[in-house]
């Protein structure tokens, strides 16, 4: 799976998929109904983008609605794929603090002055942000808001993720690389080399949310 980003990082991204790294196809962004439906589909992905999941087993109401409007009560694996990718990006796509700045016009750009987190900061969950629309920012107390720098602190930090402890932070290679693994989406790995500009995240996994997380902690 490949993701295309424009100069404004807050703009919608384009996503492409391929089965053999040679032929790529564009995925159309999913609508909200499709997103909601795809969340209910359980089980592994088949590997065939045109595979159709029978909706009547999963959600009888949605199937009935689709039949009424004249379409077949199925959801294609492509739609499930794009819905899963968007969910993963929204839920656990993270960036280090200070890596992106928000301009007064609202667009989000890379911060060319970002030199990396220090080793002490890199071990704290609060130095990483979800790269998605912030949900908790408005709920912070006025005192906390006064400490924030609106150009860099415009996203939710990982500290208040529910359930607590849904991220595992480890230092590897003698402390030269900090690796965060999400326990909600098993397979999402984020890396950052402290004091350098290198960071990024990848997802290698089955594309299923780990709903057993509260039992496993």
């Amino acid at each position, binding site marked *: 799976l490949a993701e295309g980003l424009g100069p404004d990082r807050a703009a919608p991204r384009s996503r492409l998929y391929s089965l053999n790294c040679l032929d790529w196809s564009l995925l159309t962004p999913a609508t909200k109904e499709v997103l909601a439906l795809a969340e209910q589909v359980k*089980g592994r992905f088949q590997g065939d983008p045109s595979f159709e999941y029978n909706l009547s087993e999963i959600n009888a109401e949605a199937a009935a609605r689709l039949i009424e409007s004249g379409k077949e009560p199925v959801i294609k694996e492509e739609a499930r794929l794009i819905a899963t990718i968007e969910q993963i990006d929204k839920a656990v796509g993270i960036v280090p603090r200070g890596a992106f700045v928000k301009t007064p016009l609202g667009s989000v750009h890379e911060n*060319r002055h970002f030199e990396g987190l220090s080793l002490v900061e890199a071990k704290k969950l609060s130095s990483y942000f979800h790269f998605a629309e912030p949900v908790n920012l408005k709920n912070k107390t006025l005192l906390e808001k006064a400490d924030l720098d609106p150009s860099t602190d415009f996203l939710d930090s990982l500290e208040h993720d529910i359930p607590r402890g849904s991220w595992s932070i480890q230092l590897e*290679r*003698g*402390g030269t690389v900090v690796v965060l693994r999400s326990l909600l989406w098993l397979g999402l790995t984020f890396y950052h080399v402290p004091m350098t500009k290198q960071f990024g995240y990848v997802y290698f996994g*089955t594309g299923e949310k780990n709903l057993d997380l509260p*039992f496993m902690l």
Partner: protein
Amino acid sequence: HGPYQPHEPGYGLDQPGYSPYEDEIPDAQARMLAIKNAKAYLLKTSTKSGLNLYDHFANILTKILDEQPTNTVDIIENISKDVKWAQFRKKMDTLRDEHLIPPTFEAAEKYKALFVKEGEEEEHEDLEDEMPSLPNVMETAFYFEQAGVGLNKDESYYIFLALKNLINVQPIQTCRFWGKILGLEMNYIIAEVQLQEGEEGEETGEEGEETIAEGEKEMSEAEEEDEQKEKEAEPPKSTYKPPPEIPKEANGTGTNKYVYFVCNEPGKPWVKLPPVTPAQIVCARKIKKFFTGRLDAPIVSFPPFPGNEANYLRAQIARISAGTHVSPTGFYQFANEDEEEEEADTYEENSEFEPPPVAEMVESLTTWAHHVKGILKQGRCVWINPSQKSEENEEEEDEEEEEEEGGEQQEERGLPLLTLISEDEGMKDIPAWTAQASTNLIPEYSVAILQSNRWPGAYAFASGRKFENIYFGWGHKYSPESHTPELPPPAQAEYPSGPEI
């Protein structure tokens, strides 16, 4: 705008001849004076911080010209802030900071220990005895790399050296890199090992002695309590007898066939995991917990797990090995062909094995077979009737009850040892195994890769006579439905109470 004061910007601008739009000041002397005034203004020290603008600008420009960043004008404010910040760091304190040893240095020291070779005299001694087989971890890593599975080369090499250390320290017959299990704080690197005969017996002897000593202490305490209680009225004793404990399998057979050593990182000391008991396996099937990385961490769960994280880890390793260790069919054969297949426990390599081509190994799952016995519901590989053992200890009155209970437990029969994996059941419509060739482009050198869907993270490869199993993952089984924890048992009936009684 009244007359500008000297400290305000704009001073002198309302004078004729001094406006900013007139670049040239005609009078040379007046120009020199203006320059001096400007410089004096810039050199004025701030009352708050002791800096002056002239030096600050000089520093900024020096820094910019030294570093030459792109799009300087966009980040000029940040550069200015950085220069001011740097002022504080340069000051030499009377207290010198302790030289902080970076953690990278400490880690490097640990890894260095792995690389140190022992003295040559010891090497000669070892060659005389049987050399325990050191697995070629790098070769295995190469084959798994074809599948996109594995650790990076450095880590594989460190594990290789750590295994060599393990072999030198412990009396080991065969050794294998089993895999890596991820944890919350630290990860586990696991080695599967067969100890030389005679080494394992000592440990169980020690454990037995300890329990006997504890038992004697309890007996003497209980006797004292009994003497006291005889004087008082005794409350009714409970007639509840817990179900007989299923004994664990002897070291070297069944679930305890191999001994496992773990370490958090190569370079850290290897810790031996205790043998697994059937109760632990039965409980491990009911719970799903992340590993923290500390072997002594308690497992808080329902049903309560009998043991700490080391036991849970050992139980999961046993389950994964039983479920996913496979080899090409025919590679292993039963030692005695006369025995019934179900009872055979040992197998040996088949010297006449001819490996099928890779394409065949990928297409049909009949070319792969399990070489580890599956675990029954009881938690053992070989079923045992628990009531048989306890009959010797019980009195005659209880025999009737025991027989009733024994009758309920039916003998469990598991699949025989070398079953083909094509007989593994899938979950709903998900097959138990997925087979792929590593590449379609170069079929001569491609490797057959097998992924388990029941235990995500378990892989096996086969290429000619070489094959290997490995596990990289979190250590949990896959289930299409969510995990539902066991419900607490229903409340027990109380004794009826009321005016009649």
